[in-house]
């Protein structure tokens, strides 16, 4: 990962030598690669110092991080598997951000989506697998969508802060999940780990052919591209960005802000709900407390690191997937505690957010108008 970023930085800085006007014309776009890249390298540097303080070699650290995340085909699959749910849950934060809303309740939508998808599969046991899978996708998206729409509705009609309400809805979702899994939907045979019945091996969606990576990655990439097109290349997306920029101006020009909020919140929740459906249909095969693995919360981090850009979410999710994939190797080879990965995530988060202040301030990238 480190060398990739370094290459990108090299490319960005070497090529202008041949074309003196290059920087002036493309300085703005280069900034979007250079600044987060530099922030990332700075964060890795700080983490290296942190690790050196524990008496471990930073060079070993970088090597194992690279090996664990991207060094082998297995490592790549490990990274992509971990990235898959993060793309979808990050969209749950990034889409409402276009409207200026801070939604941090993707975890709740994921859990509700998993529950509705499981419930649907369980009542459709006799249907053909493709129909069950399609119904699960729809149910997961509708369940998750309505959940976040609830937070959007509270904001629009009752003036409730959507950040707080979406966060609190996570705990309600978890309580509903535990209640159903330990009561109404419990498989009586699941003695020491209360779970729903299994959706059945035939209804599982499996892996992308030739890999171990489940289809959630494809769903995520498609959803991210669709969101990008929706936000930047449609009238609806333009309206959303106008409303995000200035609600009053949007109302004056006649935009229905309420409808925008509810629709965007539904789409946001639907993508997290889809992540929940994938966790059931590709990984767990049923619903139980294991689903609350924190993907919804890591998704918030991904969305902010991607500066709420749906396309940038894909590489950022892969980066964080890689960090978490390499975390195991750091524990095993360097004897670092698991918390060190969280320290690295924290340093990257702070470095990237702090680097926001640099946009438009780097001398040699400034256009001369």
């Amino acid at each position: 990962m480190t060398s990739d970023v370094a290459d990108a930085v090299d490319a960005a800085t070497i090529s202008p030598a041949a074309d003196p006007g290059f920087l002036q014309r493309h300085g703005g776009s280069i900034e979007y690669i250079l600044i987060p890249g530099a922030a990332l390298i700075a964060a890795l540097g700080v983490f290296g110092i942190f690790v050196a303080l524990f008496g471990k070699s930073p060079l070993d650290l970088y090597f194992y991080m690279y090996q664990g995340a991207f060094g082998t085909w297995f490592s790549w699959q490990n990274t992509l598997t971990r990235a898959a749910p993060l793309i979808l849950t990050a969209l749950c934060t990034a889409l409402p951000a276009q409207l200026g809303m801070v939604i941090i309740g993707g975890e709740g939508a994921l859990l509700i989506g998993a529950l509705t998808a499981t419930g649907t599969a369980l009542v459709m046991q006799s249907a053909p697998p493709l129909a069950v899978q399609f119904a699960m996708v729809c149910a997961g998206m509708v369940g998750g969508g309505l959940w976040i729409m609830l937070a959007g509705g509270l904001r629009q009609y009752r003036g409730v802060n959507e950040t707080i309400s979406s966060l609190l809805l996570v705990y309600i979702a978890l309580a509903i999940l535990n209640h159903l899994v330990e009561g109404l939907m419990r498989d009586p045979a699941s003695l020491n780990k209360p779970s729903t019945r299994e959706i059945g091996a035939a209804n599982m969606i499996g892996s992308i052919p030739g890999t171990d990576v489940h289809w959630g990655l494809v769903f995520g990439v498609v959803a991210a591209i669709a969101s990008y097109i929706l936000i930047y290349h449609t009238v609806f997306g333009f309206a959303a960005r106008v409303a995000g920029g200035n609600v009053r101006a949007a109302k004056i020009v006649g935009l229905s802000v309420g409808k925008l909020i509810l629709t965007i919140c539904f789409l946001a929740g639907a993508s997290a709900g889809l992540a929940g459906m994938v966790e059931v249909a590709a990984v767990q095969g049923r619903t139980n407390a294991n689903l609350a693995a924190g993907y919804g919360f890591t998704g918030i981090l991904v969305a902010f690191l991607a500066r709420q850009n749906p396309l940038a979410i894909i590489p950022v999710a892969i980066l964080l997937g890689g960090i978490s994939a390499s975390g195991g190797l750091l524990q095993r080879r360097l004897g670092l505690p698991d918390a060190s990965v969280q320290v690295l995530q924290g340093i990257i988060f702070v470095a990237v957010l702090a680097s926001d202040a640099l946009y438009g301030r780097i001398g040699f990238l400034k256009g001369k108008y």
Partner: protein
Amino acid sequence: MDFGKISRRHLLQGSAALTLGTAFGVRSAAAADTTIGFIYVGSRDDYGYNQAHAQGAAALKKMPGLKIVEEEKVPETDAVEKTIESMINLDGASLLFPTSFGYYNPHMIKMANKFPKLRFEHCGGLWSDKDPKNAGSYFGYIDEAQYISGIVAGYSTKTGKLGFVAAKPIPQVLRNINAFTLGAKLANPKATTQVIFTGDWSMPVKEAEATNSLIDQGVDVLTCHVDGPKTMVENAARRGAMVCGYHVNQSPLAPKAYLTGAEWNWEALYPKFVKMIAAGEAIPNFYRGGLKEEIVKCSPYGEAVSAEARKHADDIKAKLTAGDYVIFKGPIMDNKGKTVIAAGTERGQKDPELEKMDYLVEGVIGATS
């Protein structure tokens, strides 16, 4: 850092350093006869469930020809599948101990099918004929040790009120609560056990609240079944109550208040497994045992334990170790007045009915739902 001053040369130097780092950092996994992987769901120094397994792993580290790799805080999702594969692919592990209950199905089963030549040993699962032959599940009848704790607690309480901080009303936990209460009633027929369920395995705040609430109601001896007993032990000792430990010996946390405790004896079992494999013996796929088989043990008595209590507890312990004592022997009534084990019925430890326990015996104050 002033990014405005970064020159091309600095960036080139930086990327060169990173490339060199990769080249120098190359390390191959040290060759060892057998590599064994341990996976924990929580932190390996939690004074609880995970530490008990880590102590077992530590016992293996002392044996020649073995290399132990460990990874902590691995969630019960596809992350554990990737950790297992990573230990196999990158570390060459040939024997794996995924130690958390939720790792078993579908995750460990999937990996055991994928790597049929490697051996997988799971703690707590219920291996059945449908599961792969290279997978196994082992567990201990720790309720025997809880029974001994109950006897000691029954002698030590002045109020006759005992307290139990429990995670979830599932069979394993109910069995411990019931065994503890039955033991206490041997010493003091009027003793009661008040139980509080916190709802999950690791809920330190709720565990502290439950501990305080129990002590406020007059409870003066407490025990627990949660992943990390540290919270209960420290809080109870601070309030002047006495405690019986769980999972590992917690006497260093509360030397004066610690009476005894129900401990896992993985440091005896794991070396035994490894020796069996080395000798070419098959480990039974379904492996269970208690004090007799040295899978569980009791902590040494604390100074507050009376001579009378020691004598009675040692007597029962000797019978359990000899294998001629039955804890769940009728007549046993539940705390709603219903007979759950009829007079004349003896439910020995291997009785499958006990794995389905869904009641609290007479003398327990609390409800399973």
